[in-house]
């Protein structure tokens, strides 16, 4: 189009959003644990085109992860019980973080602790590198042997978030679990505890049984359900939180392209993350960015910020 001398109205649209004082050039980022920045991805698109980049959650110390099978396909979704294998914070800071930092987009660092001390130590360690723009607390992995996630119980949630917020200057993003009766309550608690933004949602706890083997399909028995299957639940989570909190929300759960991403923006998300769909279509994030641009241009908006929360009427 541009080549033909015709102006593409999409290029006029401002896609940038603000997440806790950090400017994202566009509202599309990967969900933690579903996209790696490395040479394997070189023929797809450059991660520098993303709204933000994020690592797979790290713990302070190395962890092997769960025994296989770790994933299982379900209708319009998948269960994963990866169990967050990692090489530990030191290796991450040495080998991976500088790569993310050099790309250009804001860097969100996703962390998790096994104990309160670990949350503190890891947060301070990440902040000390000066290479993170936002600190995402994964309070919601359903696959940890440590027991229930940190964000399904209000008091625990408050304790972790307020403790970390008290220790670092980095804006803190609380990533919440949907496995609660009312996630808006949790959103409010996180906000009151000092979170600067919310990521919602992490996966739902679920399982499958292999009817040939007559055994749970996953090595870990249960896993986390993600994908388009859970999108109506994730959209409701964002919508209900948006009515309750003032801090920005990064929406996720089943984003498979622009239509789903726009649903989240209309529900009140300031940005969206693409998770399992990265496995299905390596261009999903790029396609989502372009599709949002086209939608905004066609609907006559000049900034993506005009449609955030618009679905509330």
């Amino acid at each position, binding site marked *: 189009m541009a080549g033909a001398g015709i102006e593409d109205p999409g290029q006029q649209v401002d896609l940038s959003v603000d997440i806790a004082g950090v400017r994202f050039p566009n509202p599309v980022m990967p969900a933690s644990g579903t996209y*790696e920045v490395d040479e*394997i991805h070189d023929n797809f698109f450059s991660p520098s085109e993303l709204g933000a980049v994020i690592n797979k959650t790290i713990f302070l110390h190395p962890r*092997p*992860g*769960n025994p296989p099978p770790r994933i299982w396909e379900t209708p*319009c979704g998948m269960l994963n019980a990866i169990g967050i*294998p990692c090489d530990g914070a030191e290796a991450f800071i040495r080998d991976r973080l500088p790569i993310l930092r050099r790309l250009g987009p804001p860097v969100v660092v996703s962390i998790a602790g096994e104990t309160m001390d670990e949350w503190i130590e890891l947060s301070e360690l990440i902040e000390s590198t000066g290479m993170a723009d936002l600190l995402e607390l994964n309070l919601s992995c359903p696959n940890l042997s440590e027991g229930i996630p940190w964000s399904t119980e209000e008091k625990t949630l408050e304790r972790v978030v307020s403790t970390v917020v008290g220790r670092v200057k980095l804006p803190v993003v609380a990533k919440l679990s949907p496995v609660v009766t009312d996630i808006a309550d949790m959103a409010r608690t996180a906000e009151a505890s000092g979170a600067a933004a919310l990521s919602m949602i992490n996966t739902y706890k679920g399982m499958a049984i292999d009817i040939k083997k007559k055994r749970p399909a996953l090595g870990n028995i249960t896993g986390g359900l993600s994908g388009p299957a859970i999108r109506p639940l994730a959209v409701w989570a964002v919508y209900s939180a948006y009515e309750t909190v003032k801090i920005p929300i990064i929406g996720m759960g089943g984003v498979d392209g622009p239509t789903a991403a726009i649903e989240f923006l209309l529900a009140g998300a300031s940005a969206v993350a693409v998770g399992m769909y990265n*496995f*299905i279509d390596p261009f999903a994030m790029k396609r989502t960015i372009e599709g949002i641009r086209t939608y905004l241009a066609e609907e006559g908006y000049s900034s993506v910020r005009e449609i955030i929360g618009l679905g509330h009427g």
Partner: protein
Amino acid sequence: MAAPVYRKAILVSRKESPKGYMHLVIREEQIAQTAGPGQFVMVRGWHTGDPILPRPFDIVLADPLKGIFRLCIKVEGKGTRFLSTLKKGSGLYVTGPLGKSITEFDSAGTALLVRGAGAAAVVFLAETLAKLKKPVYTVLSASTKSRLVCRSLLEQFSTDVFIATDDGTEGYSGNGTDLLDKLIEEGKVDTVYTCGAHRFARHVKALDLAGKVRGYLFLEGNMGCGMGDCHGCAVKKEGKDGYALVCMDGPVFRSRDVVVE
């Protein structure tokens, strides 16, 4: 190694042989030109739905000049059933080539111990060895004569093919491992590749540990992405407290490096 591409490719031909195994020839130039033995592709013929994830299949052969490559798919569950009904000319999404290509061909004699869909995995390797004029002995087995997979291709590229059938309808009546043991005894092979059947993997690993051969396994695993994003395709590393990823560290592993159930 070249980074993989993700493309909508065209199915240029399809043929069932033997029953329950579909050979698909797909046109996608870049994959055809960069693929090496041991590599695989992730294939998807559907949109969001059920199935939703792409499925991994070994590249049976690639023709860089014609820009086509071949898969041999055992019809198992819904994904493979769907792929097996695709008509010539259909579009399907492919990501590849993925995984590490085999690059060491210094063995004096190589044996391929395969059965079922596992046969599909080693054809490319047999072709490569044949081009390098390296001796390659294939031990191909099946329940019965009519269930032998990729037979003519393996015959084309192997120095010799030994058949074993469980029911004795052709070749040796019994276990393919017996034929392998004989080849080793005869001093013809110092390297063995195997895949699929756990029985074969255990046997080859034992030979490897005993120092009789260099054993290699084509491993499988439930895959989400095929390129290191999901950490789904874990396989337990021998001795160590940790896992390797089939899609990144494999799919071909030295048998003594991984745990075989």
